[in-house]
């Protein structure tokens, strides 16, 4: 199972990447929204974990890009406190789940597993 992780914070990105790899998932990383959108266009990923606020393109734009591909890819959004409006918007645009930062990597893995069961 191939998972795309889009996050501009290096520590969070590395931690999620290593955690997913430890659990046996294949991972592609993107350091900003634009790289993530390019990846979505060129690679068939099975699941996306994306931060909402990122340079060049936001998590919301990633959701729109996924919609344009016509594929149904589960997306877990990571948001900061106080971004409720953005989170609601993200759900409207097709986000499957979201987690608020600071977050627990263990809980994220559980959510990934839950979503991957539905694939």
């Amino acid at each position, binding site marked *: 199972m191939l998972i795309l992780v889009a996050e501009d914070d290096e520590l969070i990105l590395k*931690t999620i990447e290593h*955690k997913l790899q*430890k659990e046996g998932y294949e991972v592609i990383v993107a350091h900003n929204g634009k790289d993530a959108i390019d990846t979505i266009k060129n690679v068939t990923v099975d699941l996306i974990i994306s931060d909402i606020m990122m340079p060049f393109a936001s998590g919301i734009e990633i959701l729109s890009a996924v919609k344009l591909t016509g594929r149904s890819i589960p997306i877990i959004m990571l948001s900061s406190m106080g971004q409720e409006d953005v989170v609601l918007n993200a759900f409207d645009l097709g986000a499957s789940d979201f987690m608020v930062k*600071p*977050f*627990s*990597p*263990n809980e994220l893995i559980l959510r990934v597993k839950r979503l991957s069961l539905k694939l």
Partner: protein
Amino acid sequence: MTLFSLGISVHELFLTFLVIFLLVLLLIAAVVFYSFYQYKELTNIHEWSDLIDEKVSDSIVYGEDLKNKDRGLNDLLRFSSFRNLFLQKLVDSEKKFSGGAQLEIRKIFDDYDLKKDAFRRLHQKKPYLIAGGIQELTTMQVTEALSEIEAFLIHPSPQVYQEAQYAMVTFKGFEGLHFLDSHPYKISEWQQLRLLRSLSSITSDAEAMMKDWLESPNDSIVIFTLRLLKKFQVLALYDQVHTLLNHSSENVRIQVVHTMLALENTFTVDHLIAAFPSQPEEVQLEILHALHKAKDARSSVFFKEQLHSHSATTIKLAAAESLYTLGEEKYLMDQLENPDSEQDIKLIIKHALQLKIC
């Protein structure tokens, strides 16, 4: 007059130039050396940051399995600049994660014995360094630092005493707010929000404490307490809050209106309407907004009265908007169509309807 007539020989002149030349060379060398040092430091910080990130990430992902994989950090601990960066990065990292990941980060702090560096900062002179030390010890939950941090509650620097206040609340919860009993300085809006956010519950004796704080001569403490009452829905203190509508500070009275609405009971609307005439315009506007949110049909007559009789346009406009919210659209339309209505009232109603419809 020539140099020779001054008695300066060619030899002396040459020596002078040579000395100046050497001094310039020395200066250039010093600048180059300093720039190189700065560059090296910058490169080090970049490399060290990556190294620390790797260590934190490894610890979160693999935990105990990687306990001995030190990535050369032990060797770098002899540099104080590395230890400072390490501490700072751990504090920043701790804010990004929750649950077991936070515990792993605190374990790194213990394993590398960074506690003494954080304690050392408490004895520095510069306020930002002391505040940094308090923040580090608080984030890493070093409870043994509590008594030392408590002493900073009366430090003259706001940066220091604010960090100490936050630490007390982080360590002790509501009990940590005891500094409010005799706090002489203003608690900034930002600090109030920070403290409120970090509190998740109140203690059994909280009511008595908050009752005292409501009588504090420090207005910011009264406002903060009103916010606490609002957050934790302390209905029992409604009457004390109500009496504060006569407080000397306008800002306190504005917060009183917000808190009364949050603790609303069957008398709140009557209390607010009764207090309205004696308040300045800013507080009156807050009362109107509160009545608007309360959506109580009893306010309808009051709003109509303000629309027609109040002297301030902002109050008339707020009254018209509230009437619309209460479902008095027909009344407003009648006023518009009534040829006897005053022109300014018609303009205000049109504006209010436009705001509501758009």
